[in-house]
């Protein structure tokens, strides 16, 4: 397999190293949390995964706007790549959140909690985005997907702020960072490393997925030329 670009292998190596270091830190350096015990360590990749997915959706937003404004092929391919990778991280966040929630609150999912519901809606929007890219009308899919991508990315602030819709006493999803959690320095260091590792992984996966879009476009262009010659 011809990897995309000569900088890809070093980027991949650095990413794996970052992931390995962050895992080591999370499991061997960070102390056990007093109340929740071992399961609290899911926090590092759960929240880092959420940050990675929001970043990917921000890329979708910018690339989609550029594509609608300029019909740029590169921005369309980037939007498709970032949307798919963001959806994968969104899935990771949802599943780890449910596992952690079951451990901490004895419930897999609670429909009264706005953060959980809005995040599920975000997941469904980007599932639709990926399915549209896969099965949509080729003549119109780039425009339709760009519009859906913009709407999906625009719902990210709603996910983040939804937790404020309920009074403090009724909230289920914690606001660790906002309320000064992570007091031990190792917690912050572990969190920082996890965020950097997940962002690096998002970048590398988006790059690889972008490459798939490039080769697919080349093949489609060739097929179109062959069809027009045959005609």
């Amino acid at each position, binding site marked *: 397999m011809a990897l995309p*670009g000569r900088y890809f292998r070093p980027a991949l190596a650095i990413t794996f190293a970052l992931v390995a270091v962050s895992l080591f830190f999370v499991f061997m350096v960070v102390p056990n949390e007093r109340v929740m015990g071992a399961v609290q360590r899911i926090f590092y990749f759960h929240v880092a995964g959420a940050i990675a997915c929001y970043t990917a959706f921000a890329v979708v937003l910018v690339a989609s706007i550029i594509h609608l404004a300029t019909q740029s092929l590169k921005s369309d391919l980037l939007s498709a790549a970032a949307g798919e990778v963001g959806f994968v991280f969104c899935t990771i966040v949802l599943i780890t959140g449910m596992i952690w929630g079951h451990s901490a609150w004895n419930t897999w999912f609670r429909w009264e909690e706005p953060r959980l519901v809005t995040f599920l809606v975000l997941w469904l929007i980007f599932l639709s985005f990926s399915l549209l890219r896969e099965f949509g009308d080729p003549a119109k899919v780039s425009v339709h997907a760009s519009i859906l991508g913009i709407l999906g990315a625009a719902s990210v602030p709603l996910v983040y702020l939804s937790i404020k819709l309920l009074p403090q006493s009724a909230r289920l999803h914690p606001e660790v960072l906002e309320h000064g959690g992570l007091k031990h320095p190792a917690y912050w260091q572990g969190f920082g490393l996890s965020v950097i590792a997940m962002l690096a992984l998002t970048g590398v996966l988006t790059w690889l997925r972008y490459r798939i879009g490039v080769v697919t476009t080349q093949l489609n262009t060739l097929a179109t030329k062959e069809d027009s010659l045959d005609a």
Partner: protein
Amino acid sequence: MPDTFPDLFWGYTAIWIILALYIWSLGYRLSKLERAAKQRGLVTDERATTSQD
């Protein structure tokens, strides 16, 4: 404090399974496309395609 290690184990297992499956699918799709491109004599260079902009 109850033992929450099994939940931690399943949480991280879910992360790595999802990532492994996705990375495998990316590799599989890219290999398949590049084989098809090679059969058609295409130079699979990013600059060649995106020069359409």
